[in-house]
């Protein structure tokens, strides 16, 4: 660990915190454009956060300490997740602290606290949303694990930094398994980030909500933290996808100067990814909730196929 890697780590976290709302704003802009609407400002998510942080906090009378703690725990989980996902550099001091499996666990931890908090005040919608969110979670997490394992098999490591470094800085090899894993990852990301076709982030219909109904009772800074955490999650997933499937341009310990190039490259990749996400959402309708298991089972199947292909194509005893 040296000064530069500390700097890279710090930059990684700061970048996630600052850029995440921008990515959400960007996706919302594209959604509006694709619907022939006048788009809100790119900085609208920041204005919303600013507004929410300055509002009076209203908490239900029967809320337990868990209800008050949940926003901070969920937000903390998302910050930590962003810290261990290599965005600019693979030389991250925090990365050895948690590998890909722990990352999935981190997302699961946030989900558990969010669901518990939603059920805490005892409204019908909180419980309903918690149940639906758990349904999605328990199907999406194994699929995400399989996607990460497909990538792990290539570099024979579960540490994200090592995986990405292996993928980014090796001579160009085509990994067919990653194509399958990539599709599976896209499906999982849509489900995990409450996007269409699984959930509709802009709906006002309380009976169809999943993620929104979980945070229906929250207000002011608690809600701001949840909104920010949702942006961070989308950012983390996007960066994870970029790092796994389009890793070119990420700096490592040997090439610290690449950091300068990595930032504009990341912004470019995120911009393209965000526009594609909006396009995907515009084309689709929201599916019936009982189609979600089929949707995520497809993701799981694709990820497993990806893994099997890696195993088939790799001679025994030899790492790729």
């Amino acid at each position: 660990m040296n000064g530069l890697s500390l700097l890279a780590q710090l930059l990684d976290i700061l970048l996630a915190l600052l850029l995440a709302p921008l990515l959400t704003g960007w996706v919302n802009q594209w959604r509006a454009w694709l619907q022939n609407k006048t788009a809100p400002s790119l900085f609208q998510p920041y204005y919303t956060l600013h507004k929410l942080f300055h509002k009076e906090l209203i908490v239900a009378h029967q809320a337990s300490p868990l209800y008050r703690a949940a926003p901070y725990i969920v937000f903390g989980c998302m910050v930590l997740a962003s810290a261990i996902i290599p965005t600019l550099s693979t030389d991250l001091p925090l990365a050895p602290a948690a590998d890909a499996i722990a990352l999935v666990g981190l997302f699961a931890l946030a989900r558990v606290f969010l669901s518990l908090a939603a059920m805490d005040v005892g409204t019908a919608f909180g419980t309903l949303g918690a149940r639906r969110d758990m349904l999605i979670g328990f199907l999406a997490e194994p699929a995400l694990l399989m996607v990460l394992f497909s990538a792990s098999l290539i570099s024979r490591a579960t540490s994200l930094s090592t995986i990405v470094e292996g993928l980014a800085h090796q001579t160009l090899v085509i990994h067919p398994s990653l194509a399958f894993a990539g599709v599976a990852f896209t499906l999982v990301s849509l489900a995990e980030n409450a996007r269409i076709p699984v959930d509709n982030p802009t709906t006002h219909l309380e009976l169809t909500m999943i993620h929104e109904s979980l945070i229906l009772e929250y207000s002011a800074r608690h809600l701001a933290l949840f909104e920010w955490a949702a942006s961070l999650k989308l950012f983390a997933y996007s960066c994870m996808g970029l790092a796994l499937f389009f890793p070119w341009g990420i700096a490592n310990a040997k090439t610290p100067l690449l950091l300068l190039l990595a930032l504009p490259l990341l912004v470019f990749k995120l911009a393209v990814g965000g526009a594609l996400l909006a396009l995907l959402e515009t084309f689709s309708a929201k599916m019936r909730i009982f189609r979600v298991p089929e949707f995520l089972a497809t993701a799981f199947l694709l990820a497993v196929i990806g893994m099997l292909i890696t195993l088939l194509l790799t001679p025994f005893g030899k790492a790729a």
Partner: protein
Amino acid sequence: MTSSAPPLQRTILQRLLQELCPDCQRLPGPFPVWHGPCPGAQWWPLAQRIHQAGGRLVALWPDAHATLLHVTYALEETLAWVWLELGKAQKIPDLSPLFPAANRLQRAAVDLADFSLAFDAPDQRPWLDHGCWLREQSAPPQPYAFVPVTGEGVHEIAVGPIHAGIIEPGHFRFSVVGEKVLRLEAHLGYTHKGAAARWRQRPALLGHELAARLCGDSTVAYSWAFCMALEAALDWRVAERTLWLRALLLERERVANHLGDLGALGNDAGFAVGLAHFSRLREDWLRLSKALFGHRLLMDSILPGGVRTDLDKTQCALLHAQCVALEPELLTLRDIYEGHAGLQDRFGTTGQVLPGLARQLGLTGLAGRASGMAADLRCHGNWAPYNALDVQAALREEGDVAARVAVRFDETLESLRLIRLILDHLPAPGPAVAAQQNLASTHAVRGLGRVEGWRGEIQVALQLENHRDSLTLRDIHLHDPSWQNWPVLEHAILGNIVPDFPLINKSFNLCYSGHDQ
């Protein structure tokens, strides 16, 4: 205006009335309405015979002084409007075994008549009064007794009356197992405003202003029905051109609502592009309404005896051009809706009301036509101007959300055709009201108007009286088709999952304000 000519043959309903309520007489007006007292002993047999003949219950209400109970039945284009004299301590037979919609109509009647009538019905819960009305017999507000569902894993979800979106208030109680709905019970009446009492305080000839404001999305239908009833009571002859212009307004209202609903249905299924495009089309439509008729929703465009604005040639050309421009866009959007796998998966078999159930429950209007109930006032009867337009009623048998979407597309296209036809054959301007009766000579006359609004049949029944030389409404009742369709919504959701309810609800798009009044 054929009230003077004798009908060629008596309708079934007429024969029934002659047998059971011989004092019935025909009221003037474009529709054959037979009106008179019903002897107490014939209340149930009449309902039974009409039910056997395939008739339907339209409305049921007590008059303002709680001395009479009115009911209207429709069979083909004929309407029977009979009333029962209320005596003390008399239990009125419950009509709900024959016509399920009577359940809530009767409970509302008890509320409105301040308990001066009682039905021999098992369900005695109040309906419109939530215990907050100021009156002598009012009990303190108590929770509405929803029918409980018990069993392992069954729990209740209470939704509303305040919702997450900006919509009208209504409470929905779901009993669910997991996501599956076992029972839904709606509780309405939150927007009751005592509109009937307000009507009685105002001059009868200004009543159309209130009628136009009862339900914003059906303002043309309500004001036309009101004016039709008023004109029938006063036996006014309205100019041909006026009737054609009213039909034009009614069709424009229908198109505006269908465009809004089609977009909203796409949006509720997560297809926001549909909403964006339909909103754009609807906005253009409303702006032209504002420019030509002075109001986006066409409020106050129909007056007793006339319409507020006439059209000149250039204005007709504008309206014509808008229909021509809208049609190809609508066809493209229909192709997109029908070709979108995700949307069709959400719409198909969702919220199904099969024709058998629809007939049993008396589903009416647009939702009825999606479930094989071929009733459309515009196609039946001999009333101007629809008798000259040859309206093709949309009809589907599937009874699901997809069918209600398809009916909306068909009706919008048909309305676009009708608007062009009306514009092409608009009669020449003449005197607005051909013969005005001397207002002072009228005393306690009744009139009834019926109009096929976009949601279904709207009926206005009124009684005029001459009060100190000014014409006032002694009694008025407006009936919204939502009374028939709200209970059917509770059946449509059965076996579906909770997150599909908003879509099913939107596909019916029933009225709160017109129902609660």
